[in-house]
């Protein structure tokens, strides 16, 4: 075993490359499988995996020869995507050793994501690893590295708050609703108007077991279509006031210049509703829901600015939590390096022992030729003595190499050992 294998990561992400370039270089599942196969055939690359999401394309590999490997990957990408290397080379980052390990940990833990703490990335890396495992392009090193990665990501998620609190408007609305209702089970939702954010909020509510969905739209037909989508019921726009008697959550997103629901609407029905709480989510600009309603008892109104405010605060909280995450990553990088260096220790110890044993055996043989008068028992005794000497001589150096010394010292010891006993010349 000569020089150590290197862990190299090559990639680009939302920070280094434009959307257009990322779209250009995005790699589909089929392409991934082709790429893995191609990389596997290169002598410079020992192990490899590849993952591509809408925010990043990354190639993680264990290489024998860094320069060749990196060049080959660049060429392959260029050929696959019909894009000259010069077009994307500037956006690429190449990490090695500890930096590569740190990068993988950070990406999986969602510390490197556009929205810190978003949970999808870990699943995407798991899939990419699965792909590499089935294609047999991952080996001892990648297996170990990826299992560590999953462990680190999980630890960061449970020990820090990077995944806590909503960072999108619709999630923020749902979380607020949870503070009012506790559970959405059996709650009725009224969607007024339409729009991506509003519909997303309705979907979140349905996923959290909100039951009946009513949809009111100025154009009844649009309402019917939307209601179908949510398995709900369409109502006419002028039925809204009446519907307020039975619903619990109102999500409004219309283009109306005036308030669609006014304070008087709500005040009049509180008794009929037995004062059950009403939660208004107003996503429209200009607003649909009279903000005065918030002053009525058991009614809560949040408009888009309020929700955005929550989102901003939550993003800030997540960024604070991310600092704790970085600390966990640093720890994990160090512990991985220890493991990696120990991988190197074992072969050195084996080679050292082999060398000493060879010397002993050689000398023993020579001596036996000159001392023919010795009996079989005597020879056995001399053999045992030599074995014992070899063991005694090797004991202390082996213990030193195996000890949990600081890593820098350890690599010095390894180096010295290999030089003192000329282990590298032996193998080459």
């Amino acid at each position: 075993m000569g020089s150590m294998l290197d862990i190299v990561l090559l990639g680009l992400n939302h920070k280094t490359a434009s959307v257009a370039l990322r779209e250009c270089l995005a790699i589909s599942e089929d392409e991934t499988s082709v790429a893995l196969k191609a990389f596997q055939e290169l002598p410079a690359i020992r192990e490899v995996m590849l993952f591509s999401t809408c925010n990043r394309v990354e190639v993680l590999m264990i290489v024998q020869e860094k320069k060749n490997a990196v060049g080959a990957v660049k060429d392959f990408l260029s050929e696959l995507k019909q894009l000259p290397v010069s077009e994307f080379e500037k956006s690429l980052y190449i990490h090695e050793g500890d930096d590569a390990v740190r990068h993988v940990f950070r990406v999986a833990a969602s510390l490197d994501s556009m929205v810190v703490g978003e949970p999808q990335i870990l699943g995407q890396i798991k899939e990419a690893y699965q792909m590499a495992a089935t294609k047999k392009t991952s080996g001892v090193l990648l297996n170990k590295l990826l299992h560590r990665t999953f462990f680190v990501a999980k630890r960061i998620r449970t020990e820090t708050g990077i995944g806590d609190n909503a960072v999108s408007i619709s999630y923020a609305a749902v979380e607020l609703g949870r503070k009012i209702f506790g559970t959405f089970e059996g709650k009725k939702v009224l969607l007024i108007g339409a729009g991506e954010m509003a519909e997303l909020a309705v979907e979140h509510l349905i996923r959290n077991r909100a039951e009946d969905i009513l949809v009111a739209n100025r154009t009844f037909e649009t309402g019917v279509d939307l209601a179908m989508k949510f398995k709900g019921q369409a109502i006419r726009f002028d039925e809204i006031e009446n519907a307020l008697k039975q619903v619990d959550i109102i999500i409004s997103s219309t283009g109306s210049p005036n308030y669609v629901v006014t304070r008087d609407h709500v005040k009049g029905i509180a008794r009929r509703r037995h004062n059950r709480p009403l939660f208004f989510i107003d996503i429209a600009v200009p607003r649909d829901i009279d903000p005065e309603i918030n002053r009525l008892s058991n009614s809560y109104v949040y408009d888009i600015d309020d929700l955005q405010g929550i989102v901003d605060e939550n993003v800030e909280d997540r960024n604070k939590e991310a600092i704790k995450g970085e600390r966990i990553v640093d720890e994990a990088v160090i512990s991985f390096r220890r493991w990696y260096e120990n991988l190197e220790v074992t072969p050195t110890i084996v080679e050292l022992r082999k060398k000493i044993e060879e010397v002993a055996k050689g000398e023993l043989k020579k001596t036996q030729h000159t001392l023919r008068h010795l009996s079989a028992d005597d020879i056995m005794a001399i053999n045992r003595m030599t074995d014992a000497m070899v063991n005694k001589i090797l004991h202390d150096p082996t213990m030193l190499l195996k000890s949990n010394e600081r890593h820098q010292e350890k690599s010095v010891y390894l180096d010295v050992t290999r030089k003192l006993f000329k282990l590298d010349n032996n193998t080459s």
Partner: protein
Amino acid sequence: MEPVLLVVIIFYMLSTIGYLIYLFLQKDYLQKSGFYLLATGFLCHTVELGYQFVQSGHFPVSNLYETLSLAAWAIAGVFLLFQYRYRLKILGIYAAPLVTFVMVIAARLPKVPSETQTILNSVWLVVHVVAIFIGEAALALACGAGLLYLLQENNIKSKKRGFFFKRLPSLELLDHTGYACIVTGFTIMTFGLITGLIYAKSIWGRFWSWDPKEVWSGITWLLYAALLHQRLTFGWRGRRAAIMAIIGFAVILFTFLGVNFFLKGHHGDFTRL
């Protein structure tokens, strides 16, 4: 101070500390330790009360110390039950300090052994006192749930999500727990009042004697009855119910202590120093 009493107070204090740290760190094991510490304190307390009862031969409500100690015991017991049933973990930050506070006050009071009063030995009396105390303990918890409700509602209404927003549960759960406390407390208190009437009949020959304590108990009872009636017929809930629960408990406190200090009557002995 008796060593058992000291042990009880120490457990209650530890529980309070556990709950307070839980408020900040939000780790579930803290809340659990708070719960079990309180439960342990409660068991010791029960033993201590039982021992006093047996030793003195009368039910321990003959002076303010004994009365407060019994009140703390009732609050701890009712809280443990409600916590077990509703899992409103955060209520511990109200209940544990309250229990500890009452116990510490009680422990500092003189514990003069009272002359034996035969009237303190009837079964009706024991049932009357225990029921009233348990009922009022539940209403004390309702007050706590009400306070937490107001705090959380203010967080949501004002759109300033402060320290408590994250830490407090949903309005629905707070409201529901408060309501359950009131229903339970009211029912048991009613039972306690009825046994009191029967006991009064057996001792003084009449159910009702316009004793100030009786009058104020009647007022308290009517207040909670009105609150429940409003809730059942008009759905009085949320903020208004929370405020009423707090006012109701203030009236209970007055009935419990204020009447004895400011007014006179045949319940006087309970708070004798």
